[in-house]
């Protein structure tokens, strides 16, 4: 078994897990269970990133998404004490609209991707595989602080604004 094979197995495993987790996320009744399945899905996505050689994004996905955002979600779920809501109807009555929309969307995108595999309409040319340096973090950092320095700063301002907004909104006496 070569590393490539392992990486393939890992990809299909993680892909399956991600999709399964996502399905359960939107279908289970209990919000906390839903959050747990979302975490599973996100972790599996992190695994997919690893198979793509994006190690830094893998770490960021776990630290920020799983360790940060999802903790926040669970924290809020506990704060708002949803036991009462559990006994209420969990799904609204626009399921068929959603289904239809999803079907249309899926067929469109699937069609596009399917044809992209070969010589199709979307036509993704063969990539320049293997040119990404294994020193992912260095590469990432250089690009981030040279080419994307301004967006990076804007993102940090956005975070600050969100932070202040969240604090102001949840304050007891506004």
């Amino acid at each position, binding site marked *: *078994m070569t590393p490539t094979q392992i990486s393939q197995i890992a990809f299909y495993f993680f892909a399956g897990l991600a999709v399964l987790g996502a399905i359960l996320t939107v279908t289970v009744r209990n919000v*906390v269970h839903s959050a747990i399945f979302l975490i599973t899905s996100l972790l599996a996505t992190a695994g997919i990133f690893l198979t793509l050689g994006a190690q830094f994004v893998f*770490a960021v996905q776990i630290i920020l998404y*799983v*360790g940060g955002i999802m903790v926040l979600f*669970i924290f809020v779920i506990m704060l708002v004490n949803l036991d009462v809501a559990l006994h209420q109807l969990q799904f609204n009555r626009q399921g068929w609209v959603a289904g239809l929309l999803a079907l249309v969307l899926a067929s469109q995108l699937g069609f596009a991707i399917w044809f992209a595999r070969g010589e199709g309409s979307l036509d993704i040319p063969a990539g320049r595989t293997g040119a990404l340096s294994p020193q992912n*973090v260095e590469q990432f950092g250089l690009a981030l602080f040279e080419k994307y320095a301004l967006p990076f700063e804007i993102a940090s301002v956005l975070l600050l604004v969100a932070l202040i907004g969240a604090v102001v909104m949840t304050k007891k006496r506004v």
Partner: protein
Amino acid sequence: MSALLEFLKTYMWPLIFALVIVGVLPLLAGYVVLMERKVMADMQARLGPMRVGPHGLLQPIADALKLLIKEDIIPENADKLVFWFAPVISVTAAMLAYSALAIGPFFQIAELNIGLLFIVAVSSMGIFGIILGGWASNSHYSLLGALRSTAQMISYETAAGLALVGGVLLAGTLSTQKIVQAQQGGTWFVFVAPIGFFLYLVASIAETNRAPFDLPEAESELVAGYMTEYSGFRWAVYFLAEYANMIVVASIATTLFLGGWLRPFGSIAALDFLDFFPPLCFLGVAGYCFYRTPKQPEPIQSGVMALFGGLCLLLAAAMALPFVPAFAASKAGVHGAFWFLLKVSLYIYSFMWIRFTFPRFRFDQLMKLGWYFMIPLSIVNVLGLGVYKVLRQLQWSRWPAFLLTTGGTLLVAIWLVWLAQRKVAVPGPVGDMTEAEG
């Protein structure tokens, strides 16, 4: 079949190390508990466990057995699945973190490009075990413990992460191997970034939920916090996760600040006699064991004591192996592991010392310490180390650069303390602290 063989061949050493860690870690954690009890007893004018085995040496095994065969109670209204699963998450996260730790130049499961980041990422997932366990118990004490620990971990992870950034800045890499190698020729980073080390020490105590920051499980307030409803094996798993986490943070600190597996004063040839310390250390322990062997009250205890002595002799022999010219190459690995573990033990010992000396913080004070002192200071620390690095690149010599940056950071620290002091002066019921975590 051949594919499997090839797989095993490629990944033999990582697999062996992983198995060793999974197998040894629970035992190690048990002995850390024993050590903690013994240290505590010594500081409190007592003897500690003395009954099981000579000087209580078999106590961890007895404890583990007891916990395994205890009744496993699941509260009636608990969310059974999550309740069952939560401790496993905790312990998995703690154990996964070991995969990137370099115990010596040789003993490492996986040398990762993002080593330190990986450890931080994976161990940050342990919090789910706590928060889900607390929620699934369906008890108010557990819930409060879970909420507390979430807020605490998020707050202190920021400070710990920024403290690590300081060290990483100096090393210029995230790989654990290369971080240690960066300290090889020069000084350990603790001497370059003492404030960063201090910040990480405090934050790591908070992250592992140890006194004086053990609020999530403060026994006098929340009974046992998120673990209140847990018993038997599951409880033991939580405990294992906690102690495993302690070893992880100690290992991170050792790697990043204390020179990892490097011998103290490794660059000074005049102190090379320190190489004799590892075998002599084990020889001394073995000698003590044999000295105490005839004094044990029961023959079986004498036997166990002698066994321990023998074990130490064996280890001493292993430590002496590099002095045989034929095996000289093993020196880095064997002695490296010794020094690494010694530093980890000392770090954990400082945890214990702090635990038995200080009272516990209150939750709002903990948050204040985190947000008003630790995080600002850690940001300033990163800035200071950045300035240090630039100064070094500008051909400044070490001392002026060090004094300037660390001195500046220290001044900021004093200013922050002064600010906090001024606020504390007003007595009366504490202000609203629920907003602190926003």
